[in-house]
């Protein structure tokens, strides 16, 4: 897991930040390599925004070190600002300005970078460039926010929940956009609580909970760490006939069994052997099956396995 420091464009060591009684970030280490898209994945309140805003120089850490592009915030703040692109989780751009006016304003703050029209074309808002920001859809507003992050031609891009609250189509558009930046060789640090987003976009992912990194690796590695490719979830039994869960541990191809409020979740290496064996076991115990679902393991399952909770409580 630890990498040579020289390779990292962003190096965070033992970062701590507390708000009165809440510890938002609790001794966090991170290394983001040049050119990669790194994801911070975690539930609400995990400390993602606090971490990313400390890296952006917007929030003061209580202790710990941040080194970005070989510089530090206390000595090179201005130089860093020229070279970073930032999109904040909750900014509302001025509704009375047009798209073009907004991008030109942000462009004027940076020494170098592409022209406003070029950036607008990049996020595909040409048709809206004369429209007021107040009249844009959620996805268009988010693309405008990203345009404002790109006007300085940044080497390092911070995206804090770029797709939260968007419909699936708008999310996919944004993903395409982010993928194109990756191809252009930028380093990206993004936060999200969508595991499909992290799996699709991120080269590496850190899963955060309660201000700590609890798992780190490529999405593939993390899923493989479960040691099981599939998940089987079922409910069985009814009044009077309880299922003997402990008997399931011995079923062929099953690695881990969890039972919670009447439903059982099993990690499984080989689906084609585990499912018939499960059905046979249920038949032996004479418990009727009421529901059965299987899916390939995801980052969500990694999170559930590590914390016993779901990423999003829906």
């Amino acid at each position, binding site marked *: 897991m630890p990498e040579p420091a020289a390779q990292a464009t962003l190096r965070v060591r033992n970062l701590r930040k507390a708000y009165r009684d809440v510890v938002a970030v609790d001794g966090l280490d991170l290394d983001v390599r040049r050119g990669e898209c790194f994801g911070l994945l975690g539930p609400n309140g995990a400390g993602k925004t606090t971490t990313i805003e400390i890296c952006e120089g917007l929030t003061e850490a209580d202790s710990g070190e941040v080194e970005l592009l070989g510089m530090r915030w206390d000595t090179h703040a201005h130089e860093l600002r020229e070279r970073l692109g*930032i999109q904040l989780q*909750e900014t*509302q*751009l001025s509704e009375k300005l047009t798209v073009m006016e907004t991008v030109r304003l942000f462009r*004027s703050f940076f*020494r170098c970078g592409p022209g406003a029209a070029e950036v607008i074309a*990049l996020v595909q808002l*040409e*048709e809206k460039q004369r429209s007021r920001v107040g009249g844009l859809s959620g996805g268009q507003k988010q693309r405008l926010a990203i345009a404002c992050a790109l006007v300085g031609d940044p080497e390092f891009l911070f995206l804090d929940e770029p797709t939260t609250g968007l419909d699936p189509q708008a999310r996919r558009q944004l993903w395409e956009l982010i993928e194109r*930046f990756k191809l252009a060789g930028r380093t990206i640090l993004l936060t999200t609580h969508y595991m499909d987003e992290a799996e699709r976009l991120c080269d590496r992912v850190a899963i955060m909970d309660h201000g700590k990194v609890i798992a780190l690796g490529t999405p593939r590695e993390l899923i493989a760490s479960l040691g099981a490719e599939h998940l089987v979830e079922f409910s069985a039994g009814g009044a009077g006939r309880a299922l003997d869960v402990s008997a399931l541990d011995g079923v062929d191809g099953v690695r881990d069994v969890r039972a919670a409020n009447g439903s059982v979740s099993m990690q499984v290496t080989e689906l084609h052997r585990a499912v018939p064996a499960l059905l046979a076991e249920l038949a032996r115990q004479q418990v009727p099956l009421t529901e059965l679902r299987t899916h390939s393991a995801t980052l969500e399952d990694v999170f559930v396995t590590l914390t016993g909770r779901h990423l999003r409580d829906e």
Partner: protein
Amino acid sequence: MSDTTAVPEVRVREAAGRRPAGGGMADHPLVQLTLVRFREFVREPEALFWVFIFPVLLAAGLGVAFRNRPPEVLKIAAVTAELAQSLGGEKLLDVRQFSYAAAEEALRTGKVALMAEPGPGGAVVYRYDDTNPEGRTARMLADRAVERAAGRSDPVPASDRLMREAGSRYIDFLVPGLLGMNLMGSAIWGMGFAIVDARRKKLIKRMVATPMPRHYYLLSFLLSRLLLLVVEVGVLLGFGVLVFGVPLHGSLVDLMALCVLGSLSFCALGLLVASRARTIEAASGLMNAVMLPMWIVSGVFFSAQRFPDLVQPVIKALPLTAAIDALRANMLQGSSLAQLAPQAAILGAWLVVCFTLALKLFRWR
């Protein structure tokens, strides 16, 4: 959606990248920030109304309500043509000739204050109600007219000098007061709402995340305020001068300098008020708490001298009092800037103190 097709190539970094901003002055951050302030203001019709139209309406309304009436002309009735002619020599009487019966009727219904009829032996008889002041005045004026027409000359010559010059009327007192009030309101509201709204929307935090120099952000508010000031002062003064003939005895350059100084110190006050607040409610409460006392005691609508001597030093130290006193002295008495040094010093002190404090306290996130 039309924008899902045709994906442009990513060529930002390689081809076009690292290019300095073109476009010259227009792309200077201070120019862009000031333009934004301007656009946000102009695209808010309510703000336009309160800043430009409302003060003019107020001046018009109060100017008409408290205008000086022309001297009263009293209507009287004369029964013969000779009497009507000799009474007609008096400017303050409006003489009509009536038949006897019609004159009696007009007197009884109050249409005329007095009726004059010929008496025996060339005498004149005045009929009027002596409990009515108009009647008594008409009696004196009519008698004087008749006697003069008969050849009397005044034993003591006297002449009148009338006090009705521009500069001493209520509208003349009011316009500088409204001007001062407007300078304060537009600066404090303009700064306060815009800054707190941007902070609430995390827009200030977003700006601070760019290389924008922070003082440009604050300067853009001052610059746009000064530009709008020209229009604002022009509209109100233009209205006062053209419609009511309000005098401008002092130098116009001095007047503009006073407006700029006043506006800047109110801006500093507005900046201070907006330096911490995170919600519009908190900010508007603070703004009202700051402005309301000054509207009352600083002499916008009536002289600040009416308050007890004990509180006069406090009232005099308020920025709105200083601004209005200085504007009035310039416009009505033609005082020079040098004569207004005390007021200018008060405004300058507010400017420096508030601005310094605001910079220290300002919440950039």
